[in-house]
């Protein structure tokens, strides 16, 4: 089959590999119909995530049709159309039973690495480094899904792929980020990053009762999409860095600052301030892995007693983290990988009830053959390219 493979920093291969097969009783094999490229894939592309190996099959936003099911699979059958969550839960451990799927104890066969690095290992994920389990991803014609009863949502017949594909990651991610922001009716929520995740945060914040959402980015194309979703927007390059942006946000909120701030940027944050420059320089020489400029601004702008929610991915350590500001204002922080399986069904219901259609975020549809090129364009031209989906067959 054809698959997109990681071939080193900023190198993506289109590779012919063997078809996957069932390796354990709870597996299914899925013929992938649609798959997407995620902002998280860009962290791999840019070489920020350790323990990738040349030849790893990428992709974690995947859906398709079950073509084979292992003997322990109970809920799925051949022919079912399913969406596959990006993180892998076993369904049986203490954390999975609590619906904390991203903290699954059992799905990562390489748990020793994160156990040493982070103190304990979270769930594995598809196509996302050997530290995260090393599972082959879904930017391929077929994928093997372990613990398939837990890692699937059956989609009713007749619903088109593009409407439900993002249940695999960015819609639950945006929704959980908004839930983590403790939004109360009437609140103002500021969202850093108007990428696909930020876009889902904006829509979800409104669904959860926010009165105003302010989106911050420096790409007008992305800010325009945020505006279509009902957000007020700030191009941070227009207001000057750091102090300018914080002043602007306070001015927009009666001097209080936003009730909640969401960092939907993560570890590749851009910025113009002195600290951002230091981050960039250190990252370039490998001294520090995470650039935290957006997070710094979110902490600085947030109202006293407010919440900072962080769906953006971080992987290492950070410098110049304004801990005194966070302490002084008594902020609450919530963060982490999304417990995708917890949200898939309720959010499917919202889609089927026409409350939201997440396909609004798609700007490009290409075939798998154009995958390597699509990575490059997604990375280089963020103004125009917001979300790329790959059609597999």
């Amino acid at each position, binding site marked *: *089959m*054809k*698959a997109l*493979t990681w*071939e080193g920093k900023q*190198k*993506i*291969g*289109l*590779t*012919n*590999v*063997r*078809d*996957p*097969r069932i*390796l*354990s*009783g*709870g597996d299914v094999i899925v013929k992938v119909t649609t798959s997407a490229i995620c902002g998280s894939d860009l962290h791999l592309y840019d070489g920020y995530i350790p323990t990738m*190996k*040349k*030849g*790893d*099959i990428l992709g974690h936003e995947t859906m398709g049709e079950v073509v084979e099911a292992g003997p*322990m699979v109970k809920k799925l059958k051949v022919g079912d159309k399913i969406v596959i969550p990006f993180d892998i839960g*076993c*369904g*049986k*451990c*203490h954390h999975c*039973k609590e619906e904390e799927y991203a903290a699954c*104890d*059992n*799905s*990562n*066969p390489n*748990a*020793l690495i994160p*156990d040493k690095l982070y103190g304990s290992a979270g769930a*594995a994920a598809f196509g996302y480094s050997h530290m995260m*389990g*090393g*599972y*082959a991803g879904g930017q391929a014609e077929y994928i*093997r899904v*372990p*613990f398939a009863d837990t890692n699937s949502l059956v989609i009713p017949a007749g619903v088109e792929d593009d409407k439900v594909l993002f249940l695999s990651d960015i819609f639950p991610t945006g929704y959980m980020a908004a839930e983590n922001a403790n939004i109360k009716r009437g609140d103002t929520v500021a969202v850093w990053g108007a990428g696909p995740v930020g876009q889902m945060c904006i829509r979800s914040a409104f669904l959860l009762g926010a009165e105003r959402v302010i989106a911050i980015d420096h790409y007008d194309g992305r800010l325009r999409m945020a505006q279509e979703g009902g957000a007020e927007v700030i191009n941070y390059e227009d207001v000057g860095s750091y102090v300018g942006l914080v002043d602007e946000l306070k001015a927009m909120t009666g001097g209080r600052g936003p009730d909640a701030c969401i960092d939907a940027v993560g570890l590749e944050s851009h910025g113009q301030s002195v600290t951002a420059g230091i981050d960039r320089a250190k990252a370039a020489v490998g001294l520090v892995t995470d650039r935290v400029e957006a997070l710094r601004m979110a902490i600085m702008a947030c109202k006293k007693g407010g919440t900072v929610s962080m769906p953006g991915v971080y992987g290492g350590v950070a410098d110049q983290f304004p801990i005194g500001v966070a302490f002084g204002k008594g902020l609450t922080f919530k963060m982490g990988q999304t417990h995708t399986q917890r949200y898939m069904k309720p959010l499917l219901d919202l889609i089927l009830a026409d409350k939201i259609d997440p396909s609004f975020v798609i700007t490009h549809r290409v075939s798998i053959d154009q995958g*390597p*090129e699509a*990575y*490059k364009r997604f990375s280089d031209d963020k103004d125009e390219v917001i979300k790329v989906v790959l059609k597999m067959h």
Partner: protein
Amino acid sequence: MTQPSTQEQTGQPKTEAGLKSQKAVRPQPTNFDKEPSKIAATVGVPREAAYLFFRDLENLPSFMKDLKSIEVISETRSRWTVEIKGISATWEAEITQDIPGEMIAWESVEGSEIQTQGAIWFRTAPENLGTILNLELEYKVPGGKLTELVTALSGESPAALAFTNLRRLKCLLETGEIATIEGQPSGRDQDATLIEKH
């Protein structure tokens, strides 16, 4: 607020749950020849079930890496076979301590090709979390042709080997499967071909 200490006063060892659960008391160390290993996992099955599964030594190859088979010869004696990359070795082991529901310790018999010892401890976990397992595995590097095998077997350290095998045991007991990626395709396979690269 946490509850005030009661165990400290009675001199009993603390449990994983701090001082909340009186049920989850570590077995008295006096029962054991040695202290439980520090490699621990909490497994969501009852203590008796975990003990019985392990005590049936023929179950061990289902989760212990590279262990090909165990043949039970008598109540306390068993024959173990490992195989890595075509090299194999066999030895006999003797159960040296067996406290039903609490711990099992074993050791290869004198004169074995490979000298190894191990032990597992079982304790009731706090609340409804099941059972706390502590595992210890040691292989002595013998020199000669089996050096490579034993080095491969123990990985980077005995602690790493015990950690990995304990996680596999937990996964098997909780899910009936062991998480794996062995056998999945990748661009590194012999028969994989790169069509294009960007």
